[in-house]
Every structure is written in C-alpha cells, then in structure tokens.
C-alpha cells in the first residue's frame, strides 16, 4: 500500500489540500477530527451522534463512509478540504479495525476515486458567519 501511496504522490494524484502524511496515524487523526462527536470510544452519543463501533455503514462498502467523510451528511461536516486522501484512508482503516470492528483497510486510491467523483464547492456554507 505504501508503494501505491508513493506512486500516487509522485504522479501528483494525491490531494493537494493537505500535505500527504505518508505514515498517517489513523488513531490520532480520528481523535483530532472525529472524536468530538463520535467519542474516543467510537460509541457516539445516543440521540445525537451515531456510534461507529459495530456500525453497518462503517463496516460495509467503503463508498458510503468515504463519501460521508468527503461530503458530509446531516450534522456531519464535509472534510474534503481539510483531510487528504491519505488521511481519510488512515482514519477509515482505523475505525474499521478498532473497538471490535473487523473490515478491510481502505486504500488511498479508493478514496481518490470518490473524491474526483464527488468534489463539490461548499465554500459558502463554511464561510457563513452571523
């Protein structure tokens, strides 16, 4: 996987929005970006934030969790401008293997594939101040 990452980086295919951390620490990235709502335990908060531990969405076809992270959904923000493909893959690989979850890692090219298909401008939404 690492060689793939290097290859994509060399080809300039890895997203330029954040520096591609080749040895991205999935757990730390999860704690920094996701745990405020989904909680460090992955259990979420009932009635507010969905649990990731045992979640069908997390464990299923990677397309769904990838697009949710990139584009946001409901109360979840879009991370497409804040996380690189490498970072998204590291986070997903982590949450698909933590807290008793067991699902295959998510590789960078998988993230890249959906990013190119789903990129949307959401500048207005993030700049609204009141």
């Amino acid at each position, binding site marked *: 996987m690492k060689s793939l990452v290097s290859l994509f980086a060399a080809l300039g295919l890895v997203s330029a929005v954040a520096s591609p951390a080749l040895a991205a620490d999935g757990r730390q990235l999860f704690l*920094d970006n996701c745990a405020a709502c989904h909680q460090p335990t992955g259990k979420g908060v009932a009635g507010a934030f969905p649990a990731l531990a045992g979640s069908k969405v997390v464990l299923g076809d990677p397309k769904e969790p990838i697009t949710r992270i990139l584009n946001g959904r*409901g109360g979840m923000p879009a991370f497409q401008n804040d996380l690189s493909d490498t970072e998204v893959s590291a986070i997903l690989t982590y949450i698909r293997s933590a807290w008793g979850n067991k699902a295959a890692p998510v590789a960078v090219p998988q993230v890249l594939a959906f990013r190119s298909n789903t990129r949307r401008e959401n500048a207005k939404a993030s700049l609204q101040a*009141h």
Partner: protein
Amino acid sequence: MTQKFFGGGRGFSRRMFLEGLSSVGGSALLMAGMSALGFDIASAATAPPDLSGGGGKKVVVLGAGLAGLTAAYELTRAGYQVTVLEARSFAGGRCQTARKGFQLNELGGETQNCDFDDGLYINHGPWRIPYHHRSTLHYTKEFNVPLEVFVNDNDASYVMFEKGSGPLAGKPVRKGQIAADVRGGAAEMLAKTLKQGALDQQMSADDRDTLIAYLVHEGYLTNDLAYRGTEGRGFAVNPGAGVNPGPGKESEPFAFSDVLHSGAWKTLASVTGHEQQRTMFQPVGGMDRLAKGFEGAVSHLIRYSTKVKSFRQNDKGVVVTYEDEDGQTGKVKADYCICTIPLSVLRQMDVEVSKPFKQAIGEVAYALVGKIGLQMKRRFWEEDHHIYGGHIYTDNPEIGSMNLPSTGWQSKKGVILGYYQFGAQAAKVSALSPKERQALAGRAGDKVFEGYSSNIETSFSAAWHRIEHNLGGWAQWSDEGRQSAYPILCEPDGRLYLAGEHLSYLTGWQAGAIESAWQQIAKLHARVHAA
C-alpha cells in the same frame, strides 16, 4: 493587464467591468462602482401579522427559542390558548449569553462554569443585529431592550494573513491601510489603462473621462493618476500642536504588489455583505436580554425543563407527550402544534408526520460552529493599539476571526471573542478540552498582540454541534434541499406547523426565527378563521 482584469475576450460588458473591480478591490470597490452605475440593494420590511378576529383555539408550541417565543407572544395576544414546552430551564434557545454562573455541558464534554467577572459576558450564540433586521428590532423596541452599536467594521483593527507571500504576510496590518492601498493601487492601474485608450472601443469618451474622474476620487489619485497614499490610511506622525509635530508626517503606502500578494485584501468584502453592513447593533448587557424581554410577557405559558417525547395527530387535534424535570411523563392536547425544535434534533424524535415530511426533515445539514470568550485582565487592544471594537481577521480557519468587545470602553477588563470557526475546523477544535481550546486561542492571539495569552484570566467556549437540544449552529440548506425539502417543511403537515431560522433564508439569524414564526402563525390563523 486588461485581459487579466476583465476575464479576457473582446467583449466588455458592464457586468464584466464590475466583476473586474470586485476581483481586485474587493466588494467595497464593487459597491461603490455599482452605486455609480445606478444599482442599489433593497431590504424587506416586516411587522407581525394581523391576527384579529380569531383565537380561542389551543396551540402547543414546542421550544421557547425566538421562534417559539414569538409565536406564543403573538398568538396569546390574538386570543389563542398557548402552552410552550421547553427542554431547558430557561427560554431563548440559542439566544444565550454566558456570564458568571452560566453552565454548559457539551455532549461528551466536561461541564463548564462561566466565571467571568461581574458585568462581563460573551454572546456565544447570536451576537449581532443588522439594522435591516426589522423583525428583531421590532421586539427589542417592544420589550424596551436597550441597544448599543456593535462595531462590525474598524479600519484600525488588524488583518493577520499568514498564507500569502511577501513582506506583509504573517504580520498584523491595519485594515484601513490595506483598504486604502489596494483601492489606490487598483484605481491607479485602471485609470492609467483607460487614459491610454485601452477601452476606447468599449466606451464613449465621455464615459471614459467620467470613469477616470471616479477612479481619481475612489483611489485618492493625484493629477498624474498616481496613488501616493492618503491621510485616511493613517499618519507616520500624527498631526498635533505647534510646529512639532505640527502637521505631522503622512504614512507611506505599501507597495501594491506586496498588498496583493499578502492576500489581506480578501477580508475587505466581508463587511460589505448585506448582513454585515453598518449600522450593527447588540443589546446592552448581552443578547439574552432579548429572550428575557419575551419571557417577561410569556413566561407563565412556558413549562420549563420539559422534554418532548412524542408527537401524535389526527383530524381532531394533536397530542404531545413529555417528560418533566422529575422524570414524570404527561400529555398536552391542543388543536394545533407549532414546532420550533431544530431539525437536527427533530429528525431523531418520534413525530407522527407524513412520509415526505419526515424525509424532508432529515435532508438539511446543520452548521458546526465554535466560539470562545476570553476574559482579559487588561484592555491592551485599546490601551496599546488604540483599537476600539471590531474584528481581527485571520486566514487561519482554526480561528476564523477574533472580535474585540463593543462595550465597556476604557474600563479595566474585557472579554474578547477568541475564535469563531466552522465545519471541519469546528469539529477539530471541539475535540479539545476547554483548557486546550483556551491555549489554542491564546497562541493565535499572540501572533497579533504581544502578551495576548498572558492576559487571559479565564475562558468560556461553546461548540454548538455538541450542545444538546441544538446539535448545530444553524441550518445549512443545499441548493437541492431548498428546491425539494424546504418547500415541504414550510407548509403544515396536518396540524403541525414548523417554525425557526431553518425555515427562512435568514438562516442563523434571529430575524429568520422571528419572521418564520410570523409567517406560520399567519397561516394557522387564516385556517382557523376560514373554518
């Protein structure tokens, strides 16, 4: 050069010209240009609906935020029997103010007890009232809530952009200096281009000369169409008495190229938006004064600390079940229901509505928003930097902007808004403990003001997406959602009417909540009246 300004091509329209101005000078220049060419911006006039000749029916209102309070107040005056169920122990919804004793427990977070000194506060929810939000101003007047000016634009305040290049990047620069120099530089370039006849094909000689005259005026140009600075950007030595300092010494403008590459001009457009223009107001003593005003009139209708559990309806009426403070369940029966619960919360509740309505409730996203108030032991921004209110603009999305208080001038202490961030950045910052959030805000402030972090005595922060009963700052409709779900939710589902900022094009503003309530109670009243 002209190609770069106007987007290329041979054709040159008025719109392209305006866009060219906008891309170089920010919309301050654009607005000036629009006025010169006869455009204008209008604002809507609003007042509560006339509800005469009806009443008597029972209405249960869910939520005592501004939409619920507005509905309760106006319906009661019209003779309806109103009951309001409110989950919190106080009214106002997001219209909150944190001062000494205010407590906040974010979901998954530790409890914060605000311990600002007496008289100090932060509006961690809504904090500004634009002059054209006549609905909000209707109620500040109705309830005698004193207002003061909120300084929403201050030429003396700093722009601190780190992502640009050149000598101005990463340095706090006075906003007025950036504004003057970018206007001057852009006007000079355009005026000289016009003078050389580059656009003579596109405009008459008379238009050209008038436009040059405007640019001389707009950009403070000298007779040879050069920008050499203007006293409005401030003096190197201020004028004073006698011969020394006497007339003082004018300041030197920054090099146009340095201003352009700093990126700091990107901030200039922000305060020219319709929602950001002067005059901006705030209630004296905190935004929650507005909620307290309503509460004075309708608190006897409100059942506090009462959480809605379910909503049922049929063709005869509605039934809302609730759980009170002691865990006791109960029911309220009414003819109609006005539900102001944010859709982020409502989507997860047990409500009996049609399938399309239910689906529409789930379609909107909610904004992740974070704010922090920092109590400073000394008003160093006033004492050392002569900045009285206004925003410190950054291009660090983790911080967004900082804001200096528009109250307590020249007093000892003050509360600064240390950050105001959105989306993924707000998610990230909200993962930090209150102490870590304070430290993050302090590090950012130290880049602008020497000794900033060492002046922080205490702080209070809020991450709205983690606050129970809100789960987000405000509704964020996508264009698709506005087309599909929004119109469905604006109409009643049976006997249920939704209201709130989420059902307006003023999302996130109190005026949106009030005007949405006005619209819905007018519909309800028309139905009752027709029956």
